[in-house]
């Protein structure tokens, strides 16, 4: 619990993904606008950027942290069973399919 992701960092990544998505959407709309009628007033309202509240960000940090913790824990169990003290790529490979299905 003492370490984890910084909510601000996660928010920065989210913002970047969202702005990229918005740009893509705007590009699509521009194409539509050329072909169709002009509905400029509604779109600007719709394209206001997405935000997130602080608790949601803390929760997202926890979710990503859980993912990392699970990845290491499951791989560690496999490595332990093999009697090796280092988690190698093969150990991660073994747990990867189920891990990805769980998140």
């Amino acid at each position, binding site marked *: *619990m*003492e*370490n*984890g*992701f*910084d*909510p601000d*960092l*996660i928010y*920065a*990544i*989210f913002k*970047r*993904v*969202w702005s*990229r*998505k918005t740009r893509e959407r705007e590009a699509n709309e521009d194409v539509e606008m050329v072909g169709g009628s002009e509905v400029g007033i509604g779109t600007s309202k719709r394209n*206001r*950027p*997405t*935000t*997130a*509240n*602080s*608790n*949601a960000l*803390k*929760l*997202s940090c*926890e*979710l*990503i*942290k*859980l*993912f*990392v*913790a699970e*990845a*290491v*824990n499951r*791989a*560690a*169990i496999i*490595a*332990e069973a093999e009697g090796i*003290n*280092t*988690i*190698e*790529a093969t*150990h*991660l490979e073994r747990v990867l399919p189920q891990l*990805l*299905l*769980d*998140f």
Partner: protein
Amino acid sequence: MDRSGSDLEADEDEGMQLLRDRFRLSLISIAETEAKKYDMEVSAPVMGCVSDLAFKLTEQLAKDLELFAHHGNRKSVNMDDVILSAHRNEHVATLLRSMALELKAKEPQIEKKRKKTPKQMERTGADDVLELS
């Protein structure tokens, strides 16, 4: 394949690389703490792989959360959206739900003043739970 190529291009400029590196740093400390519980070490390729996976998960999470919020006619992502994004795994969803309740319980107590250190908040929150029970 084309899409991933253009995504990568967009990522490289505008400091996405910086975010990726900061993300990796916090991830390494988490992973090492977890590995220490088993007296294990995490090899470098595994660390890189987990870091990439977690970063992709974060990006996917961002897309999911935006979609969920918009579906609810909101512009702001709230805790329910995050819980919804974890619906695939019952255990994860339960964990997040209990954490959401904890966070919610903390909110009126601090009277909408946000303290900057989350650690302190956790401690005061834990004390309060003890008093209540």
